[in-house]
């Protein structure tokens, strides 16, 4: 199980007005709103917290949770910030605790969520700048990037890979017609896209 979410900060500032009346009250818990109110960089914090929640939600969907729109039911809490700048958050949702690793640059915030007990597992992830604004093209570019990456890692042929989604929208990787049990998550927003998967082999 894995969840992954990227926010293009420039796109977010242009297209999402979190300052409109009522917005933060519908999305963020009281503790989160306090942090936003006190932050020197509220835009960055809003989209960081959002991305943590979204990745935790996507993780929960892979764990069999029912689809719903309840962003306040996931509370994001900062645990540590490592020397390399990667922040570690905890999030609770539907009775499960998860760890969310957050990488930030000037341009984006990227979160990857894993169940708390699996947070030592190895993840493979890549962030990419997308040249197309068209959703279908973005999706196909991201899929192909994943096929090539996974094929290189597993020494298989990338042309043999394809992708399906289950009814909850969870992606399933197919190799030569057979479903692989690979925990995998995609995300795209604005100019950026990512994939993340749990590395199934020992390196």
């Amino acid at each position, binding site marked *: 199980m894995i969840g992954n979410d990227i926010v293009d900060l420039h796109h*977010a500032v242009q297209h*999402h*007005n979190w300052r*409109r*009346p*009522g*917005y933060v009250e*519908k*999305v963020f818990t009281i503790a989160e709103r306090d942090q936003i109110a006190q932050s020197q960089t509220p835009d960055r914090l809003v989209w960081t917290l*959002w991305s943590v929640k*979204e990745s935790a939600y996507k993780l929960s969907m892979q764990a069999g949770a029912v*689809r*719903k*729109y*309840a*962003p*306040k039911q996931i509370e994001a809490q900062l645990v540590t910030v490592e020397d390399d700048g990667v922040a570690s958050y905890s999030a609770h949702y539907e009775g499960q605790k998860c760890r969310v690793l957050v990488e930030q640059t000037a341009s984006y915030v990227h979160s990857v969520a894993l169940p708390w007990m699996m947070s030592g597992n190895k993840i493979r992830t890549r962030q990419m700048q997308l040249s197309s604004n068209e*959703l279908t093209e973005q999706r196909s570019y991201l899929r192909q990037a994943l096929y090539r990456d996974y094929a290189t890692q597993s020494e298989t042929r990338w042309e043999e890979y394809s992708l399906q989604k289950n009814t909850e*929208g969870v992606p399933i990787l197919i190799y030569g017609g057979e479903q692989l049990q690979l925990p995998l998550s995609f995300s795209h*927003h604005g100019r950026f896209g990512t994939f993340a998967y749990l590395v199934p082999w020992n390196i």
Partner: protein
Amino acid sequence: MQEERIATLKRIITPYVQNKGALEQLTAETDFIKDLEINSAHLVDIILDVEDEFDIEIEDEAMEQMLTVKAALDVISAKVDA
């Protein structure tokens, strides 16, 4: 009444829809995220716009369900027609 509300809802959601093609075939079963590819951070905007348009307040429990046109219409009707 229902037709009118679907038309109003369609006007509200249009600016947030990424899959404009699916908007042409909008039905009660249409899913905001799966079919229209609305970004989940924009669902809040739709909920706030619906509140303003119909002069209602949508509580968190009702908001949880608002993933489809039908669910949104049910929430509106529960508030407005009550």
